[in-house]
């Protein structure tokens, strides 16, 4: 006791040492560390995104104007002045550090800039609309596919499964080998072109305005069926195969033998011993492939001309709208980093071995 008080008396600044203690306590908190990692990734990605165009020495605005000039057949005189004017407008004439600072502060305020191709629409507006479509359909379907796939894989990996399960799911697994957008093309051909049951493309009938009427909702659902199935059939197989592998791994463990030796009922061994343990690497796998999932969605949207982020990205690429492309990439990266962060934080909930380290 006396030693402690002596110690405090001897430190040059007791307030500083307390602050230090608080900081290290906070930093050692797992959640906080992951959050900082998340911010770090976002910052790093943003910086990379900022730097890349500067490296090639190209000026996105000028390039865009040149492109437009070529298409329109206009002469190049006066382009320089136009470029200068736009540069000023977009803040591209300031020194690079100022631009960087502006970029980061804009980002912090969730301002992704202004579109070049659709000037003066803000990137945020363009992207936000399509984000709803992407998250709405693709997001829900992906979650469904993961759940269904994991369940299917769990049953497939269990030796005492009912016999029919194998025949139903094996064809599904072969579909896993086919990329989503290809499956989409096949489905479009069969069901939209040949049979004409479902619409060929889009999120809703062109030339209709989105509204909340019953007809519109039905229309949206009709348009959603094929893309949803494309994703579903392709992705379910992937998760099922993964989970099946995890189940097989789990069954080699000693605690499985012990579960049998305890005379436990089959259902209990399946759920609480096998599935529960196999789930851990499966969820880890989800975190790892988030990036590929997103890019997969982009392509599916392209194939279906679905009005989501992927479609906007494609148009932006075609129109060389640099700021929109940049904005979309930033959003996607933030999304992935955020989802990874969430998964990291939620993971201890399912794996008690990680919990203790907090």
């Amino acid at each position, binding site marked *: 006791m006396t030693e402690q008080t002596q110690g405090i008396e001897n430190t040059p600044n007791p307030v500083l040492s307390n602050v230090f203690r608080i900081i290290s306590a906070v930093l050692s908190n797992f959640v906080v560390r992951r959050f900082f990692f998340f911010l770090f990734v976002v910052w790093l990605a943003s910086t990379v995104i900022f730097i890349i165009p500067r490296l090639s020495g190209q000026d996105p605005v000028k390039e865009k104007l040149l492109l437009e000039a070529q298409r329109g057949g206009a002469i190049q005189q006066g382009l320089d002045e136009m470029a200068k004017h736009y540069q000023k407008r977009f803040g591209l004439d300031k020194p690079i550090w100022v631009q960087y600072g502006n970029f980061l502060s804009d980002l912090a305020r969730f301002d992704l800039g202004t579109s070049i191709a659709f000037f003066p629409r803000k990137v945020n507006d363009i992207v936000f609309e399509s984000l709803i479509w992407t998250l709405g359909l693709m997001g829900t379907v992906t979650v469904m596919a993961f759940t269904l796939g994991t369940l299917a894989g769990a049953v497939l990996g269990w030796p005492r499964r009912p016999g029919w399960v194998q025949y139903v799911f094996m064809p599904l697994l072969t579909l896993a080998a086919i990329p989503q957008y290809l499956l989409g093309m096949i489905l479009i051909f069969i069901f939209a072109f040949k049979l004409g049951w479902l619409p060929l493309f889009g999120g809703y009938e062109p030339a209709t305005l989105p509204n909340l009427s019953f007809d519109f909702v039905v229309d949206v659902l009709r348009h959603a069926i094929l893309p949803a199935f494309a994703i579903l059939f392709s992705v379910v197989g992937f998760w099922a195969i993964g989970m099946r592998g995890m189940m097989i791994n789990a069954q080699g*463990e*000693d*605690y499985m*033998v*012990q*579960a*049998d*030796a*305890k*005379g*436990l*009922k089959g259902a*209990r061994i399946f759920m*609480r*011993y096998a599935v*529960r*343990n196999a789930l*851990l690497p499966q969820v880890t796998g989800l975190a790892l492939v988030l990036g590929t999932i997103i890019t997969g969605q982009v392509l599916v949207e392209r194939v279906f001309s679905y009005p989501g982020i992927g479609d906007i990205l494609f148009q932006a690429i075609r129109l060389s709208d640099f700021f929109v492309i940049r904005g979309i990439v930033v959003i996607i990266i933030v999304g992935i980093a955020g989802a990874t962060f969430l998964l990291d934080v939620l993971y201890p909930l*399912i*794996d*008690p*071995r990680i919990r*203790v380290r907090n």
Partner: protein
Amino acid sequence: MVQPTIEETCLSTEQAITTYREGARITDVDSLVVEGLSVYYETEDGTVKAVDDVSFTLKQGERFALVGESGSGKTTLAMALMRLTRPPGHIARGSVTLNNRDLTTLTEDEMRQARLSELALVPQGAMNSLNPVMRIERQLTDGIVDHLADDESITKKELSQTARDLLTRVGLRPEVARLYPHELSGGMKQRVAMAIGISLRPSLIIADEPTSALDVVVQRQIMQTLGRLQEGLDASIMLVGHDMGLVAQFADTIGVMYAGKLVEVGPVEDVFGDPKHPYTKLLIQSLPSLQEKKDFVGIPGLPPLLIHLPQGCAFEDRCPSRFGKCTGAVPEKLSVGARRDVACFLYEGEGAS
């Protein structure tokens, strides 16, 4: 029946050395009768006879130690008793009678019911035998729940209480119930495994290398606890392992396995004092001794691959006492004394099969 008292806990210090064997414990009733048990694995290269024609009897309350090198078939035998043999292995022949019921004839569900309630496996707790994502309390009680009859039920409170009782019985603090396996030491995990093993008061406890991977002090505590638990249940114990020193202190009867066959069986003092089978002799000779200084002696050669067993005795190529007959036929089990069997041609003529 007297409830066992808590003689030692994890926190108490070591007591004086006690011997575990007490004659009054063993009754005359047959508990486990294994007759001609054979476990074969069918592979592309032929049939692997992991366990071949093994027979022995355990009396109620007896402690039987099954020893042998790795690959001798002792673990396979233990698993076969529980009917936990995994394909491509299968019980090809023989019977396993526990309390006058032949386990090999039971249906899958009947066998499931019998596991834990009549015969329990206590594995190496230090290994991965506890479910890493389940709390100890749940792992202690889920076996109980799954063995309830259709009309029986039990409350969560009763289960919780039972879990705590079991923990106390094996010398652990009740608070351990809320922990996860990775938070326990090897010795603690072994005790939990034992607690699970006794939870339904089985007649036979099969302990598979219960003290490997533990240090000697903990080893002794574990074996003491095991012995105490057994007495509380009037159960028999089958100890599977290769630690001869442990066997000498703990077991009543010892069975020696080699290449899937039981080559010698008998009371521990007899077998240690006067080993009959050449393999047993070499095994005991190879034990380091505190009394006398002698060179380390191993057994030259390697055990045979079970897939290429020779025509005659499996030990023949390493046996110092081999003679002509040994290559021609497989030695049968011969009785050479009271509850004493050997499978070796050296003793033909001494006793009847």
